[in-house]
């Protein structure tokens, strides 16, 4: 009997378990998935929780529900991977593997910035990338009287790079609906050169910041949070005042990657961009946020990647060359407030373009344009996530590789 071990039962790991259980012969392969946590969170929902759009129950379920029968599910802490010895040490047992899939994801590291996780953490300084942070922020916003709200992210790469933008758009909408927009001063602070950084998106969307009266501070590289003065201060000594800071801290891969000596400076595992095989060990594959591929850290990327990776695991088992197929395809709805959203579809090579999706010339979804239909798509996505994506069911008409059909290239 051979062993395939998946580390992490989040979005990517769960999808791989579902794909492989029907592909690998049960008489030859034992599939094991390891994750210490019982709860599976719908992470895109953390954007909506602070605004009371979703309830707590809508963003979490028991993870076990999504692990298919026939897969050995172990709820234990992963201590260390020993890739030279093909083994993984858990808190009280050791697993040998023939093939390892690393899907340990990434998480926020507020401790990387001086003063961020200080006395005001979850009091006036919030994250919305964890269930706890998002919930604490909801409770704060419910009776916040207004003031300076600063929405900030520390550095790239972060999980879902558009989430901070969506947050500031939804905040504008939320305070308008509550009749207190005039009491809130909204500022978006980014380490990048602009709120939008790709030429087509910049041209199509820059007006949004002005329309919604959101101030933008660019090229801001945070050095510290000053908890006395309620300021964020950058290395160039620029200071931005806040009454309420909503920040996305540095994102890092799991500590187990660091303990195992398998990651880069941010604990991301060096991975082939197109095959998803790790660069250092041929029987180790990496999927989702854990890898260092220059694609967005997003569930849709993991979804498309899981189809290529499934094929490549089967090819690897047969001793055949791997497909250099994965193109970094991402497909994301972006909330812009007032019950509208954008849809973007892009990959390593092509930036988000205008057009129609998924049917060329028809749509019904419009790319890089605000529409109510796209907003419905975003809300429908929660159902798709729980019922299709995690189970590895392909989304109709949306292929693993990005299609140029229906897109305006020039």
């Amino acid at each position, binding site marked *: 009997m051979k062993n395939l071990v998946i580390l992490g039962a989040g979005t990517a790991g769960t999808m791989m378990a579902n794909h492989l259980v029907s592909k690998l012969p049960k008489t030859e392969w034992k599939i094991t998935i390891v994750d210490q946590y019982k709860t599976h969170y719908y992470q895109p929902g953390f954007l909506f929780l602070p605004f009371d759009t979703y309830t707590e129950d809508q963003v979490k379920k028991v993870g076990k529900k999504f692990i298919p029968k026939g897969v050995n599910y172990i709820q234990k802490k992963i201590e260390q991977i020993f890739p030279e010895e093909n083994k993984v040490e858990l808190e009280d047992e050791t697993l040998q593997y023939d093939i390892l899939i690393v899907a340990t994801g990434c998480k926020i590291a507020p401790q*990387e910035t001086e003063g961020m996780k200080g006395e005001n953490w979850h009091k006036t300084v919030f994250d919305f990338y964890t269930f706890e942070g998002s919930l604490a922020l909801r409770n704060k916003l419910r009776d916040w009287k207004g003031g300076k709200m600063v929405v900030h992210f*520390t*550095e*790239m*790469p972060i999980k879902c*790079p*558009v989430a901070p*933008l969506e947050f500031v758009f939804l905040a504008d909408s939320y305070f308008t609906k509550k009749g207190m927009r005039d009491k809130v001063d909204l500022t978006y602070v980014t*380490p*990048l*050169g602009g709120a*939008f*950084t*790709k*030429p087509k*998106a910049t041209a199509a*969307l820059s007006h949004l910041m002005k329309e919604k009266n959101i101030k933008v501070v*660019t*090229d801001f*590289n945070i*050095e510290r949070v000053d908890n006395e003065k309620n300021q964020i201060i950058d*290395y*160039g000594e620029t200071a931005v005042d806040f009454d309420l800071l909503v920040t996305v801290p*540095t994102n890092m891969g799991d500590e187990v990657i660091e303990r195992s000596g398998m990651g*880069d*400076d*941010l604990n991301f595992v*060096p991975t082939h961009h197109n095959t998803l095989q790790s660069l250092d060990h041929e029987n180790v594959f990496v999927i989702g946020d854990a890898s*260092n*591929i*220059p694609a*967005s850290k997003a569930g849709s990327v993991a979804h498309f990647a899981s189809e290529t990776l499934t094929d490549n695991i089967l090819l690897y088992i047969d001793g055949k060359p791997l497909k250099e197929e994965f193109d970094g395809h*991402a497909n*994301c709805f*972006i909330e812009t407030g007032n019950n509208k959203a954008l849809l*973007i579809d*892009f990959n390593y090579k092509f*930036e*988000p373009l205008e057009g129609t999706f998924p049917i060329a010339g028809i749509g019904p979804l419009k790319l*890089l344009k605000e529409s109510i239909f796209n907003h419905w798509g975003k809300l429908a996505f929660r159902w798709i996530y729980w019922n299709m994506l995690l189970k590895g069911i392909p989304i109709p008409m949306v292929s693993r590789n990005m299609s140029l059909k229906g897109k305006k290239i020039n």
Partner: protein
Amino acid sequence: MDLNIAGIRLDVTEDGYLTDVSQWTKEIGAEIAKNEGVVMTDRHWEVVSWLQEQVKNDVALSVRGIKNSGVLDIKEFYALFPNGPLKVSTKIAGVPKPKSCI
């Protein structure tokens, strides 16, 4: 878009970044630096080489990365490339500046 620098036609983005790092030469870097108002010293070139090396190894560039680089500290980075050091230094190095999805 294309741009003529040091007598060579280069493919650049709308904000003047080389789209193909293999077209980069030190002369081109110097010319871009001049347009950005940066007078290059050996120290500047060291930083430029380090940035190019990072990009080659798929390491995401950030100011925090500079802090851990062992090459220079952030204060010096700001002194060498004022007004958005990462934005300016990547342009001179012929590598993409850090970007988001949109």
